[in-house]
């Protein structure tokens, strides 16, 4: 254990701070920036190595060697300055790593650069109404017709489908193969005739997701990534990136700080919420958990620096992190009492109703990206070496 940073790393930190100070006028102020300003900021970040840092230069990235510590320093300094980070959409966090791993040279050249710069927005077509946790049972079919596939079926839980230019999509190309071997991973335009996007309104009151319907959508066979029938294995390479995104301890720590501020500033009967021993005790329980996951995160950072497998400490992050976020929102709602149920607008509304929004939306995150129950299977089977549930012959 030595949590000090070397002079080289402190120098790098100074460099990031100087950049953020010099460019404060580019990000300070209104959070809702026009699209062009956001794209410009993204390009500036890539040019300086604060976004797309480890993506090779030839594909439009900055081309630095992977360095977990520098990545962490960038994250810390951007959070401290309140500066917007580089884009973290599904195209960048899931498609780009997949293309780098298994894409053809042509696919890498065509898609990675514009995706990194935010010029091409992607959505993910994985889950289906009948294929959730059992994703490999997906039924959207792609039938061969000359040089094309003709796709029909539907996808669900597709966030950003309405804004997306492109989709990376799992379809069944070999109906007679065993279920894991009959899937292909396709890239195609959301403007292709035959695609219909319907917003999927959730309990939050807004539509964070969509349903996407395909009726005889014609896509060239060259759109396959990683080989025909290999889609399951291509997708699994990406799913591990998604699980890494959920349960980020920095975001959890920021949320806890907001909760502490709330409990110090809000009062009931003239008494601060923090002065209620029951709420204070619950806050301390959560603080212990936040610190625990923060230190667990540092341990995982060290493991990836030294190339060691993070093992159990890595497997538990999604399960524990998402649950913890949910509990922080729950305490905020409880501590606010009746005010905690206010929503949408009104003079008594606190934090724009975001605690309730988080409480509802985070339940979706506990389910999405591998449900808590699937996470427990993974922890037990891969982490503890426990046997799998025997499979039914028909499944």
């Amino acid at each position, binding site marked *: *254990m*030595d*949590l*000090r*940073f070397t002079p080289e*790393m402190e120098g790098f930190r100074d460099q990031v701070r100087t950049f953020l100070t010099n460019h404060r006028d580019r990000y300070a102020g209104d959070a809702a920036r026009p699209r062009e300003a956001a794209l410009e900021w993204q390009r500036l970040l890539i040019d300086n190595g604060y976004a797309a840092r480890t993506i090779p230069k030839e594909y439009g990235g900055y081309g630095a060697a992977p360095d977990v*510590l520098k990545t*962490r320093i960038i994250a810390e300094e951007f959070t401290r300055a309140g500066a917007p980070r580089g884009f973290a959409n599904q195209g960048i966090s899931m498609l780009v790593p997949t293309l780098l791993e298994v894409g053809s040279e042509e696919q890498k050249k065509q898609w990675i650069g514009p995706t990194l710069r935010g010029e091409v927005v992607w959505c993910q077509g994985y889950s289906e109404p009948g294929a959730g946790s059992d994703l490999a049972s997906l039924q959207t079919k792609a039938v061969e017709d000359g040089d094309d596939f003709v796709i029909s079926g539907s996808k669900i839980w597709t966030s950003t489908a309405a804004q997306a230019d492109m989709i990376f999509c799992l379809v069944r190309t070999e109906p007679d193969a065993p279920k894991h071997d009959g899937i292909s991973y396709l890239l195609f335009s959301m403007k292709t005739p035959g695609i219909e996007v319907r917003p999927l309104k959730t309990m939050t009151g807004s539509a964070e997701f969509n349903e996407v319907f395909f009726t005889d959508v014609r896509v060239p066979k060259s759109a396959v990534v990683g080989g025909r029938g290999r889609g399951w294995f291509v997708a699994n390479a990406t799913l591990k990136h998604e699980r890494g995104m959920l349960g980020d301890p920095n975001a959890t720590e920021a949320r806890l700080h907001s909760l*502490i501020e709330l409990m*110090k500033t809000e009062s009931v009967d003239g008494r601060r919420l*923090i*002065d209620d*021993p029951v709420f*204070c*005790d619950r*806050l*301390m*329980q959560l*603080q*212990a*958990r936040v*610190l*625990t*996951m923060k*230190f*667990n995160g*540092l*341990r995982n*950072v*060290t*493991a990836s620096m*030294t190339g060691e497998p993070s093992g*159990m*400490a890595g497997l*538990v992050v999604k*399960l*524990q992190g998402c649950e913890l976020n949910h509990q922080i929102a729950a305490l905020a709602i409880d501590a606010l009492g009746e005010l905690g149920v206010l929503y949408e607008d009104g003079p008594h509304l606190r934090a724009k109703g975001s605690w309730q929004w988080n409480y509802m939306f985070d339940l979706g995150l506990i389910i999405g990206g591998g449900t808590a*129950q699937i*996470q*427990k*299977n993974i*922890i*037990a*089977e891969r*982490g*503890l*070496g*426990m*046997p*799998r*549930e*025997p499979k039914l012959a028909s499944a």
Partner: protein
Amino acid sequence: MDFSITPDQRLMQESLIRTLEAAVPLDRVRRFAADRDDSGADVWAALADFGLPGVVIPEEHGGLGLGLLDAALAAEALGRAVAPAPFLGAVAASVALTRGGSAEQQARWLPRIAAGEVVVGLAIAEAVAGARDGMGVVASGGKLTGGSLFVTDAMTADLFLVADTVGGLHLVGGDAPGLDRSVVTSIDLTRRLGELRFDAVPGEPLAAHTLDAVRDAAWTLLAADTLGAAQVMIEKAVAYAKERRQFGRVIGSFQAVKHLCAEMAAELEPCRSLVWYAAYAFDEAPAEAGLTAAHAKAHLSEVGRFIARTATEVHGGMGITDLLGLHYWFKRLGLNRQLLGGPERVRRIAARMQGLAA
């Protein structure tokens, strides 16, 4: 930035685990638990050969000169083995003496503690976790009067580290005139607790105010002990679930059982990092030491209780029998939870440290 233990620390811990497997198998624990007159001297001698009593004592005083993280790794191994050993008192006295003792006191006591010749009992429960049943020790004119409960190794200690009602620390010889000791029986028979009564007992005050440091070190070691004991309970539950068959399958293939095991592991594994950090902060980041020690103590207590109960349940009826001996770990976790403050009290202190509670 390196958040990991060194290869040397790992080797030390593995070697200690093997030493304990030889010196304190479950049969030895059973004999210690059954016989109040068993002092466990053979176990302590084996640990003294290892250098454990002096783990944080500077080398010039005959210790290993290591940090609290090394002591915590050792405590984890002791918890794994549910080993009877006066380790908590040894480290607490080392901290009190190195941080608050005079040069003369250090030279007189530290080498003998490091060698394992002087067994130290810890009598700080009232100052840390509150006074009950009229307890509390008042220091006046170099003499101590009153009483202290939940004193570790009270019947066998050669020396006591005693906290008075205003947070001062004193060394008191086990044979000091006016000192009366008696047994206090807890659920956990792998550790010995007792009650001390002081009637104008001569004490040797320590110069500086070090009660907070002693408390933080003790909280961290109790958390580490819980980490080790709870880890063993998970291992035993998983092994049992992989072996026990019902309905024609091993029960570990049922998700109802498998998920209990996953929940235990998901709760405990991140705790390892919290314990490491608290121990590291004790020596290297003093501003964070109190808060992280408190959170380690309180959080590991909660996780320890969950695992003690759940791992026992995974064993089915066998879990509650004496035959299996699982209850030694269950009870060890139970004592670690309450000793020097249950989680609610410790969290209250954690809130006060941050100015969040009065």
